[in-house]
């Protein structure tokens, strides 16, 4: 306990100034070291497309792209990602046009309540990049395959970190497949 107080007294304390680049804009903020990226975005910067579902890394509603890769922002401490580039579902539209994944979710009715949707879409975006890079999945038959073919089984496996309690999966999978097939 003495050490605990000692460390806090040394001034390496509980507040830290960080800079994040969120959806193209540089944002400076002071955060408590306990703040997750999810809370920093939602509570401090007013960016509410990453959702807080379980807050324990189990549901995927908080998914965002962190330096190009999809992650659960509820388990990432903001202070540890000072200087990072973040993309949320809010930053995907270009020139007022929805991202193809967003359009596909609308066309295929890939949601009911919509709460998991921003996480689903950002996760799908990260997942398509992973497949493009040739990353195999648990269901990829040949581990050494050069090119990944995203059939429904592959999409389901690769998207298993995003839960939809309305169970709109039957429409989410075709929405993602439409974009991956292009």
């Amino acid at each position: 306990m003495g050490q605990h107080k000692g460390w806090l007294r040394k001034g390496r304390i509980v507040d830290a100034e960080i800079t994040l680049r969120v959806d193209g804009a540089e944002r400076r903020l002071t955060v408590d070291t306990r703040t997750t990226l999810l809370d920093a975005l939602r509570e401090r910067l007013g960016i509410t497309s990453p959702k807080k579902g379980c807050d324990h890394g189990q549901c995927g509603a908080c998914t965002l792209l962190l330096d190009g890769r999809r992650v659960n922002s509820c388990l990432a401490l903001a202070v540890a990602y000072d200087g990072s580039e973040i993309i949320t579902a809010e930053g995907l539209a270009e020139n007022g046009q929805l991202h193809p994944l967003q359009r596909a979710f609308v066309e295929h009715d890939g949601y009911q309540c919509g709460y998991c949707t921003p996480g689903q879409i950002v996760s799908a975006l990260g997942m398509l990049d992973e497949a493009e890079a040739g990353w195999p999945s648990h269901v990829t038959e040949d581990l050494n395959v050069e090119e990944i073919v995203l059939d429904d089984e592959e999409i389901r496996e690769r998207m298993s970190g995003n839960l939809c309690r309305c169970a709109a999966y039957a429409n989410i999978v075709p929405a993602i497949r439409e974009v991956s097939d292009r």
Partner: protein
Amino acid sequence: MRPYAYVRAHDVEGAVATLAEAPNAAFLAGGTNLVDLMKLGVETPDVLVDVRRLTSDRVEDLEDGGLRVGAAVPNSVLAADRKVRTRYPALSQALLAGASGQLRNLATTGGNLLQRTRCVYFYDTTTPCNKREPGSGCSAIDGHNKNHAILGSSEHCVATHPSDMAVAMAALDAFVNVLGPDGDRRIPIEDLHRLPGDEPQRDTILEHCELITSVDLPPLRFLSNSKYRKVRERASYAFALVSVAAALDVEDGVVRDIRIALGGVAHKPWRATKAEETLRGEPASEENFRAAAEIELEDAESLRDNAFKLPLARNVMVRTLLELSEER
């Protein structure tokens, strides 16, 4: 969450030195398990030393023909590494069978080895747990213990180690490179994790301030004929009930060399040395595989809810070895 100081050391030596003077400090890497445990009040460090950018995030060839995996290599990157896929397929398969795409991108090699059990009582701070609070008792022994150990447990703890990756590494005879205040040491992965005994709070043999810097995979050619098989309650994104990592070298129908490790059955990745010894030099037949699996499980003991793990572990061992012998 309890307040803590966040420290980013300049180098690995600095990180180790910081922990050496702070008994309640912890290393932070990907944070996928630690941050969760801190939210729940299970882990309460007063200092977090961020090591994610300090250790290597690369997979490199070793002079002996093996591979060195930096502690900061994300699970997703390691699974996709072409050399790992070709030379150590069981490791790729194990990583891909674990967690979700998002978690694998955050989680690191070093952190994966040091993740804590997923025993529900360990996570529930309102219940006794010897691992969380030594001396408070074990709620799982007479509680819900479907997911718990059948091998090597003690009256103090029946928790299992949750990692898939570590099971594959155990079968691949990996070495863990560790930095401490007195320098480096190299630990056979089989010795890294410990059985609970009367100190279930200690998952590994590591000292408080020792930092995993990398993992070495040995240059054994037959490890390219390896496989990871996992049985779980969902098709994806669930911890193992039982898993098996195995590597098999068969010549003229006879087992020349073999490695087997089990997951989901013990407090550590369980290296099935008895089964290995039984099979070395014997014909690679289903009958022999089954006999060896049964010898390995001779000392297994089930709890109220997990007797299914005995036949399951046997069958998954047999099936995995059969597949490896047929694919040659």
